[in-house]
């Protein structure tokens, strides 16, 4: 097959991208920012309508906070209730530098761990701010009545999570995301009652409306009636989560999608580091073609479970009959100091390495064991049940096996996307007035996110960052009067309507799910846990072909003027088919291995990731240049003034 050489391998231009991180000492930057931010007169806040898309941790916390400040908030979500956003599924916990256990944690240490864990591909200023704010989040959540786990003395309990050397993770059983989200949802409900927030559920954002170079509104589809609706505002906050469903199978919810973010990208917002995806090491393996999602097993399990495979590729014995000497505890062997607690990207790649050698277990051979036998012997069954009872139950429900007796079978699955729309220190995109919060932006996790940091970031953005930075924008911008009668609204709505009609009119021979599954397979095979140049070139080409076929041959059921989930999915898969190619191009251009991005050409003699700080210590931000044109690469150079990028070693 002849494959065209993409011109993204050219040296990227040094670009105009400015992160606008304030000057001053790292510890002072956020204070400096707040001291100098313009304020909106309290009496004027209610004259400003802010549109918030998505009601996960970032969106709900932003709506609650900005509503509380007096802004006029319009909040929209695709679910039937704001309480169902996918943040709800986060199990493990939320980090904060409270140092309640007195085990040596500090704001600096949380900052340092996060930036190192991200393999030095994030901004110092942002990450430090995140660590500073982390403590306020816990205070806020407790004041809302979030029932975090407590010790007998009545104070909050902490645990160590994801290989951290200190116990800084707050948790509410295995349902931390649920409890934090309900806290934010309840705070938002309070503002709904106060009349400060208008909540519109079952709405999908299909377009961003840009007038005079500023984000001034959105077009949504009412998912019950199919009507297109126009919403006008002074700023748009996108809090729409990640794009892991580009891989079809992931731990994301069925409706998680990139559409809102992608539409903004096509209206001028740069997309940063799209190839940085997190593949979580402890998920329940795929069992068949009908599979619709993958279920994560909290990585807290690795605190007590030991990961192994048989030493012999032909060993078909049940695990209990494989003697100690014939087991390979490969994480403990390869990483003696961190053992089973190495970061997610390292653990996932190691699982891939052993299954690639044919050592995988289970029906498909695409699994490894996570074994609690020794922990049960050491601590007793009750202790293990207290720690992981609900997770074991969940595992048993899905697989029919009980982990108290048979080791779990686990395998990596797509879980989180570190990439996302590019934002500056104020969380504003390259489109003035469009802000992006939470997983939907690219900002704080670099090339790999640490456990218990997603909840922290979503809530930091919504509760504590955006109230300051949005105010600065509103107070400083010349916002002319715009109504939904503006011609740009009409044009944008027409574009959204035409796309829906086109999808329904194809009436081809393949379902949306078939296309989605095919895309997912390409992504998993070539843009997954390990990547190489040929595979990425092939993937980009295959996705282009699949996308062309999509618009010729997709079969979308039903009509536009009613609830029609197949039509919703059709739009989302159409966008994934564009994003997927960009992910491959981004992975292709980044000729280094860092964090979750592992290029086979760039590794050490022992097979570990080899970063290239001289050439790639930058954020790759892609600009849309037309539907059939290649995106233009811009770079934001990352400067490390306070930490010296070192090689991550967990040996």
């Amino acid at each position, binding site marked *: 097959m002849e494959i065209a050489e993409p011109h993204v391998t050219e040296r990227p231009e040094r670009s105009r991208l400015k992160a606008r991180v304030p000057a001053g000492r790292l510890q002072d930057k956020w204070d400096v920012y707040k001291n100098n931010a313009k304020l909106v007169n309290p009496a004027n806040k209610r004259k400003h309508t802010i549109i918030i898309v998505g009601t996960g941790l970032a969106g709900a916390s932003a709506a*609650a906070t900005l509503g*509380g400040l007096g802004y006029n908030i319009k909040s929209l979500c695709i*679910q*039937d*209730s704001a*309480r*169902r*956003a*996918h943040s*709800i599924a986060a199990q493990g916990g939320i980090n904060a530098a*409270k140092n*309640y256990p007195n085990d040596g944690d500090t704001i600096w240490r949380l900052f340092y761990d996060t930036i190192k864990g991200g393999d030095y591909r994030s901004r110092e200023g942002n990450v430090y701010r995140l660590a500073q704010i982390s403590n*306020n989040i*816990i*205070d*806020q*959540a*407790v*004041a*809302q*009545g979030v*029932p*975090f*786990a*407590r010790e*007998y*003395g*009545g*104070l*909050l309990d902490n645990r160590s999570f994801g290989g951290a050397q200190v116990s800084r993770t707050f948790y*509410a059983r295995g*349902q931390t995301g649920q*409890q934090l989200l309900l806290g934010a949802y*309840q*705070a938002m*409900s*309070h503002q*709904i*009652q106060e009349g400060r927030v208008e909540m519109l*559920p079952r709405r999908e954002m299909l377009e961003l409306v840009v007038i005079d170079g500023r984000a001034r509104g959105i077009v949504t589809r009412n998912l*019950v009636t199919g009507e297109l609706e126009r919403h006008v505002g002074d700023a748009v906050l996108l809090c729409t989560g990640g794009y892991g469903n580009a891989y079809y199978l992931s731990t994301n*919810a*069925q*409706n998680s999608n990139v559409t809102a973010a992608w539409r903004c990208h096509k209206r001028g917002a740069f997309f940063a580091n799209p190839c940085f995806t997190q593949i979580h090491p402890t998920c329940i393996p795929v*069992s*068949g073609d*009908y599979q*619709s*999602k993958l279920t994560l097993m909290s990585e807290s399990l690795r605190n007590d479970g030991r990961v192994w495979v048989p030493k012999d590729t032909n060993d078909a014995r049940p695990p209990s009959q494989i003697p100690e000497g014939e087991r390979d505890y490969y994480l403990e062997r390869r990483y003696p100091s961190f053992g089973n607690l190495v970061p997610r990207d390292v653990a996932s790649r190691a699982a891939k390495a052993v299954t690639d050698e044919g050592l995988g277990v289970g029906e498909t051979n695409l699994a490894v064991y996570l074994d609690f036998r020794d922990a049960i012997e050491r601590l007793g069954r009750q202790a293990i049940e207290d720690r992981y009872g609900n997770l074991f139950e*969940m595992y048993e*429900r*899905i697989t029919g096996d009980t982990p108290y007796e048979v080791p779990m079978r686990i395998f990596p699955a797509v879980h989180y996307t570190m990439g996302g729309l590019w934002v500056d220190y104020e969380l504003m995109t390259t489109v003035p007035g469009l802000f992006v919060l939470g997983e939907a932006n690219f900002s704080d996790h670099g090339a790999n996110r640490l456990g218990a940091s997603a909840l922290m970031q979503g809530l930091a953005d919504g*509760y504590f960052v955006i109230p300051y930075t949005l105010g600065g924008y509103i107070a400083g911008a010349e916002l002319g009067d715009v109504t939904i009668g503006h011609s740009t609204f009409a044009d944008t709505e027409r574009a959204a309507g035409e796309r829906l009609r086109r999808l329904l009119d194809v009436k081809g021979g393949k*379902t949306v*799910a078939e296309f989605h599954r095919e895309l997912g397979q390409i992504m998993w095979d070539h843009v997954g846990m390990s990547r190489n140049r040929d595979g990425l070139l092939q993937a980009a080409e295959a996705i282009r072909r699949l996308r062309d076929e999509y618009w010729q041959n997709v079969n979308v*059921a039903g009509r536009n003027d*009613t*609830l029609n*989930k*197949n039509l919703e999915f059709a739009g989302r898969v159409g966008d994934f088919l564009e994003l997927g190619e960009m992910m491959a191009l981004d992975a292709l251009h980044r000729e280094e291995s860092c964090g979750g991005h592992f290029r086979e050409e760039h590794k050490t003699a022992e097979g570990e990731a080899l970063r290239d700080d001289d050439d790639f210590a930058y954020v790759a931000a892609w600009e849309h240049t037309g539907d059939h044109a290649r995106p233009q690469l811009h770079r934001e150079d990352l400067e490390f003034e306070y930490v010296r990028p070192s090689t991550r070693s967990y040996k």
Partner: protein
Amino acid sequence: MTVHLRIWRQAGPDSPGRLAEYTVEDVNEHMSFLELLDVLNEKLITEGEEPIEFDNDCREGICGSCGLMVGGVAHGPQPRTAICQLHMRHFNDGDTIVVEPWRATAFPIIKDLVVDRSAFDRIMAAGGYVSVKTGGAPDANALPVTKEDADLAMDYASCIGCGACVAACPNSSASLFTASKIAHLAMLPQGTPERRRRVLNMVDQMEAEGFGDCSNHAECEAVCPKGISISAIALMRREYVRAVLSS
């Protein structure tokens, strides 16, 4: 295995509905019940028919989107399990399974198996929170809470808002849903300042939405995917009486 399905089809809120019959072959026992519906929908789409609409999202029992009456039981035969977590190994070859939406006046049908549960959001907005604005919260450890109270609060707080309690109740009461939030916040010192207003406003809203009264059938507890105890309802009643008496 092969299963026969009788599924409620209804084109819109005001259209008449009916049970339509389908057969799915080659059902794998590891499939979830919703994956079975996916397989059926793929077939329907390929044959040019409209797929069956049903709400779902996380498919791991936590978002509360899914909710079906399966064989006359809310969320199907397995206790403490949302329908998205029910796997086909709990059925037998040749079974006929009836699938219907939640039925309650306060949950009008939108289409097929999809209902409108926004009444729950309005009950929450009536008082299911602690009215603190962002910022200015005291240190998280300033207020100790006994482990027992915190654990109990967490038990009640684990409600996923799916509506199974309403669907299972002969009176279509939303008492377990409402009470679980009242009980969660009543267990904690943070919830104390507003406990009177909270219970009065939430109970009023529950009635205004057209949910029925609780007459202690306990069907709600039996189907609750999180196993929330009806002790929440007893607690709500005590809170209510106390609030009325003190006003």
